[in-house]
């Protein structure tokens, strides 16, 4: 019966939404508890926090930088060909043509999607495996709240490291643009760098980095939630990992629009 199927789907949707809401509240409460007593928190959960900062931050640097470098290069190549061929004589605008989209959009979103693929999947798989092998129950029997031990370090690390990774990505992306502009298109390097501050403002930098704080939160929350919900062995872990990546990516892309609109109005 289509009506009954619809009813079951709606019920399932609201149950899932309710679970996610409660998960968020609990994670938020645990995070507040962590940051309000930093000395005690670091004694208890310092080790997983440092491990996550390393995993999410330092170990993500190579893949983020390689992606940013080549994205900056291809952006410069496309822009250069367009400016050269279609708009002859305006290649002095190359700097702003690469920097503006990179700092406002490409840097934050690209980094968000790469971190989703690399870290979101790892978070969901790791926590999901712990859930199906009773390791999360084991944490409870050792008087350790699983969200505090597993969720909070990942959330704090994602939120802290995303702006750092994005800033690095933007610098390397602009460098990639510079390499192509200078070596392939023969544009004067000083002209390239001098053009960037003509259009890119502090507001662009701040809004770009603030977005990534939100994206980091999305990756950690969605991926941890999917991991904790994993059931049914390897298949369940696989499903949780896929959902974590798909939902994090979708939320990042949709929220990017609304965050851009918000910052345009209020920043």
């Amino acid at each position, binding site marked *: 019966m289509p009506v009954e199927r619809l009813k079951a789907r709606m019920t399932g949707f609201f149950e899932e939404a309710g679970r996610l809401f409660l998960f968020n509240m609990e994670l938020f409460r645990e995070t507040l508890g962590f940051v309000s007593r930093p000395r005690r928190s670091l004694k*208890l959960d310092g080790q997983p926090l440092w491990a996550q900062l390393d995993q999410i931050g330092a170990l993500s640097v190579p893949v983020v930088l390689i992606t940013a470098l080549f994205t900056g290069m291809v952006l410069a190549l496309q822009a250069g060909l367009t400016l050269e061929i279609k708009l002859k004589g305006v290649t002095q605008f190359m700097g702003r043509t690469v920097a503006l989209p990179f700092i406002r959009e490409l840097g934050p979103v690209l980094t968000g999607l790469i971190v989703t693929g690399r870290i979101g999947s790892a978070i969901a798989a*790791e926590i999901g*495996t*712990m859930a199906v*092998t*009773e*390791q999360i*129950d*084991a944490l*409870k*029997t*050792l*008087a*350790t709240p699983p969200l505090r031990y597993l969720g909070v370090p990942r959330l704090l690390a994602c939120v802290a490291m995303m702006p750092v990774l994005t800033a690095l990505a933007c610098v390397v992306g602009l460098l990639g643009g510079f390499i192509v502009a200078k070596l392939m298109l023969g544009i004067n390097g000083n002209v390239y760098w001098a053009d960037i501050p003509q259009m890119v403002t502090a507001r662009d930098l701040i809004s770009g980095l603030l977005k990534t704080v939100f994206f980091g939160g999305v990756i950690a929350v969605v991926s941890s939630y999917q991991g904790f919900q994993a059931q049914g062995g390897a298949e369940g872990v696989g499903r949780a990992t896929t959902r974590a990546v798909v939902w994090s990516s979708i939320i990042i892309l949709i929220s990017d629009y609304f965050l851009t609109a918000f910052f345009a109005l209020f920043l």
Partner: protein
Amino acid sequence: MITVRGIHKRFGDLQVLRGVDLDVRPGETLVVLGQSGGGKSVLLKVIAGLLEPDAGLVHIDGKVRGGMRGEAAQREALKFAYLFQGAALFDSLTVGENVTFALRRFTDKSAAELYAIAEERLNWVGLRGIQAKKPAELSGGMRKRVGLARAIAMDPAYILYDEPTTGLDPISSDAVADLILSLQARLGCTSVVVTHDMPLAFKTGDRLCLLNQGRMHAVADKEAFRTLDDPMVQQFIHGRAQGPIQFL
């Protein structure tokens, strides 16, 4: 003393526990028998506070289980040690870090003290010199013993064993039974063993009980249980497919 009263637990359409009553006396080892999938592990998880019952209460030393918050709840949790079926060792940590997990969180012991305690607890379960290994490098039996060493690191008052011999050969199973008895003697704690392994049950248990259809069917001292004039108990003890207990 653990007192279980009127525990009901349902998962979706499946009613697993239908009003379980049980007393675990101080210092004894109580063995809970029952078919696979019959709710023994669910009962153990309710006692451990890992699952919330739909109805009914568990009292630990006269206090309602789960009725505490903050540090009192933490103290209550640390009274219990739980040996999981698959050991549930933390894959990302070494054996030594697994064993001292709670000690590192809740005490101020130095690294040398932690190492010494881990070595002592590992010796108690018949292992030595494996602190630096990762759980993935251990056999099933070794993993269970490391799980036990982790569980007893905080000197618990209660040890809950969930199918401690599942997946082990008969000799390893007997070694686990000896281990349970030696820990009982050493720590003087109260134990609940969930199993369908009859040699283990008769070797370790002071009292035995049979969980059937989500209810406690029979409880008796070891020798009385062995000779109990009850078709279900006798069917289970002798492992017969034919009898009043339906094959699940």
